């Protein structure tokens, strides 16, 4: 009896000790953030209370030219991070870095102004939009790269200024938007072709030119502005979509309508817009928590971050970011924190804000290089 009692007490104590230790062990979160006007990438650690720049990695090869690190992502196995340097001569470059050493492993040249990118866990291939931000208003492409060999194996034409791409959780479909043609594109990651596209401005698709839209039927006076000097007015999407994020489980894709100040919910089965969430000014990037409960969107125009409870379809209280020009968002794998890159203006430093999602509260902030932009969560330790 006595032995049993001692044994029970011992088990209780050991259990309590283990539980206590496990419970209080702080989690460290690691995030990579690009500084587009500094040509560097910051590796930032958030320990649950404070965010600190662990390492600053200079990128590019031209000391006297800004090469513009833009899109960034981590391989599914966490061993590598990939970076698009947007400003080239004229083509941009994809860099592969080791997460262990933060040193360059290999590079490959892509198209004009390569931007957001991601590796599909199913194909192992990397898909990177060629944003062609400052080029002519013609359809651009998504580059498909074998990250092992670092060779570009395909370019898939999509819309005008393709941007904001993410891959479905099963790795089978790549979603991106044509910022100026106002379209959502679905690419099969295994068939390497566009499987569906959806005009987000509600315009019927007809002509192959200009991303497949019939401009002759458009009322241009209601659609933004002209850009060319002498030629016919160019179409600028009213919605101006800038990001697409597929939900991990509910069969929806959420699109940031940067021009229409809304998040569009697109049902993948119906392939139509099924809901619209009115947001703050100029939503730019968005991400969904891995548990699927919340969508976090950056409001570039108002320097705020919005959190949406997707079940209720309601926005939590908005969070003012540390600086103006809120840019990117990435969410921790435990769905607790959103990491927000904030560009700043002119000589201001860039900033990464950490937001407690459930409580809709900024809990930490750290300055980094100028024009913080591309951002990706790496790991928890």
């Amino acid at each position, binding site marked *: 009896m006595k032995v049993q009692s001692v044994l029970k007490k011992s088990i209780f104590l050991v259990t309590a000790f283990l539980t206590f230790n496990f419970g209080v062990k702080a989690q460290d979160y690691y995030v990579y953030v690009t500084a587009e006007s500094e040509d560097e990438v910051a590796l930032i650690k958030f320990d649950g209370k404070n965010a600190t720049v662990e390492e600053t990695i200079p990128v590019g090869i031209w000391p006297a030219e800004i090469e513009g690190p833009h899109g960034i992502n981590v391989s599914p196995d966490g061993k590598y991070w990939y970076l698009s340097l947007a400003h080239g001569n004229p083509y941009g470059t994809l860099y592969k870095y080791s997460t262990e050493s933060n040193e360059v492993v290999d590079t490959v040249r892509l198209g004009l102004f390569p931007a957001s990118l991601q590796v599909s866990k*199913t194909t192992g291939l990397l898909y990177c939009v060629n944003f062609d931000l400052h080029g002519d208003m013609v359809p651009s492409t998504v580059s498909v790269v074998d990250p092992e060999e670092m060779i570009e194996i395909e370019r898939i034409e999509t819309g005008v200024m393709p941007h904001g791409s993410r891959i479905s959780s099963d790795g089978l479909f790549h979603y991106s938007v044509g910022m100026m043609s106002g379209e959502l594109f679905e690419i099969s990651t295994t068939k390497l072709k566009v499987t569906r596209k959806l005009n987000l401005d509600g315009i019927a698709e007809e002509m192959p030119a200009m991303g497949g839209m019939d401009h002759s039927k458009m009322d241009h006076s209601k659609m933004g502005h002209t850009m060319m000097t002498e030629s016919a007015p160019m179409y600028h999407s009213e919605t101006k979509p800038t990001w697409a994020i597929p939900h991990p489980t509910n069969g929806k894709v959420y699109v940031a309508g940067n021009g229409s100040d809304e998040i569009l919910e697109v049902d993948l089965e119906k392939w139509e817009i099924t809901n619209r969430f009115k947001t703050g000014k100029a939503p730019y990037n968005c991400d969904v928590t891995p548990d699927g409960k919340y969508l976090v969107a950056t409001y570039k125009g108002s320097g705020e971050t919005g959190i949406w409870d997707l079940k209720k379809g309601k926005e939590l209280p908005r969070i003012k970011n540390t600086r103006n020009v809120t840019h990117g968002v990435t969410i921790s794998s435990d769905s607790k924190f959103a990491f927000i890159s904030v560009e700043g203006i*002119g*000589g201001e430093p860039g900033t990464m804000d950490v937001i407690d999602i459930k409580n809709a509260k900024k809990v930490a902030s750290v300055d980094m290089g100028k024009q913080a932009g591309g951002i990706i969560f790496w790991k928890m330790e």
Partner: protein
Amino acid sequence: MKKFFIYVFVFILVFNVGILQAQDLNIKVSSETVTMKIGESKQLDAVVLDNAGNKIENREFIFFSRNSRALSVVDTTGLATAIKHGEYDVIVISPGDPQLRSNITVTVEPAPISKIEVQGIPENIYAGIPIPLELKVTDEAGFERPEKVIKLSSSDEDIISVAPFTKLIPKEKGTAKITATVDGVNETIEINVIENPIAEILLTSDMVEGRSGDVFTLTAMALDKAGNQVTDAPINYSFTGESFDVSAAPSGLITEEGKFVADQPGVYVINATSGPAAASITVQANNRNVSRKIDVVGQGSVNNKHTSDLWIWEGEDGKDYAVTGTWGADGTAYFWDVTDPAGIQLVDSVKVDARTVNDVKVSEDGKVAVISREGASNRKNGLVIIDVSNPRDAKIISEFSENLTGGVHNVFIYKNHVYALSAGRKYYSINIEDPKNPKIVGEFELDTPGHSIHDVWVHDGIAYSSNWTDGVQLVDVGNGIAGGTPSNPVQFASYAYPSGSNHAAFPYKDEKTGKFYVILGDEEFPYGLDPSGRKPSRAAGFLHIIDFTDLKNPKEVAWFQVPFAGSHNFWIEDDILYAAFYNGGVRVVDISGELLGDLNRQGREIAWIVPEDPDGYVANAPFTWGAQPHKGHIFYSDWNSGLWSAKLQPIVPDNAKIDNK
């Protein structure tokens, strides 16, 4: 409790089996090596098998070639088409969990050799004068095959013998057949050797005494026994020499056209030969003696951010001013009073929404400045037009970003037009007669694959754009040489060189020789980045001197190089080149007269000055951006320390020994 253990056991079993199943799948290609002929298509196949060798259904495959220009592969079907001979890898991926990869090695067989072309045979072949043959081997697929070894033979070795490196040695009068053979394919030409008529060579030089760097123009005339000129006699030039300085080897350059330049002062013997006939003359190259002392006069320090370009001008009030840009900072341009170069004063600044003001220019009348903008927070970069009629109160007149949102790296103002680069792709001509309402009137863009542009400079109605691999483009924007205007730019000449590093260009006409040169500058950074960003950087690249006197046949004739430093922006005035060489500071170079060869080795460098500032943004780290002469002083901007002025001291008498530092 018992149930619990059963559950755990079953779970572990299922989990492990799942893993084992996943790990045991493998991809198998139908053949790991495939051989194809050019033009042939072949289906490549792969299957996924389990550990029992059973085929797994519904697996997809992605095929791709590591060299799609030589072996194209349809990525979703694996249909391969051979384009060029060689050995290539095709990678096969089967997406899924687990994701599987394999390789197929495809050998594309070369096509048989179809022909051998023999070129470079002169009309008259004289005994005793070797002939270098130009041979080209082509296969049936149309590919050149330079790797093939060509066997040459002569039907009569007494008349023509074959020498190494595809040279023929005509020995005596007569006819012989020369046969080139590759893989059983022959090409035979008949060559008629005539008696060498050349009995004498008369060699003269336009001068017998000059200086190092001066070009001696040689004239060699071949005469026959009767004293008649043999106009097609091939002349070979060579030289030997003896340097005045026993520690320096005599060196120089002699061209096949008969131009000689000495690097080292000394006595040189010039030889002209044509077969057995030869002649020589002796010339002397004296010390060029152009070195001058240079002194720092003043500095307008900028040590809290990087400084970019500069422009110096005389203001409407008769005083002298400078504007400098800033780089990777807060979008500021600084205005300076430089009337007293020893007391440079900051008089105003303008801050715009940008991170980099890379370029600054001022109109000919000194009233309007244009600054370029990169890194604007709204990504609409473009340019900013500033009223500088009173530089002490510089005021923004307008901002202009139409078609320039990608960032304007460089600009130039010429006759009420701004020439502005757009996103490194092209340049626009923008009318600023009404500076409040700039208006695009024209544009210039190349149509070459992957074209890009770095700079544009306008002089006398000609825009000189530097286009990296496409080299310099000469475009008429009002000169009239090609009927161009600002709204209708017309390209009429160009020159590109292999390194593809063309970053800047500046035209120069030498009035004495009538030569028209365009000097092209490289920008190269082969030594990589300083990881901290706070240590001195080092550049490479040099200046290429292109003789554009014949616009249709530009020729690279000379170069100026500074060891372990790299060229950036430069200026020419009164036969003197002022070149910023980043970590090498400012180099002042005598470019008078005809230019040929290595200008630095010829002692043409007049002076150099390196801006070192212990209080600089990076301490003691010269990184000079540009230089501009103005009213007897040299002004230069430095990446780490701001604006500087220097004074070149007067020329000292010949043969006087001076220390230029």
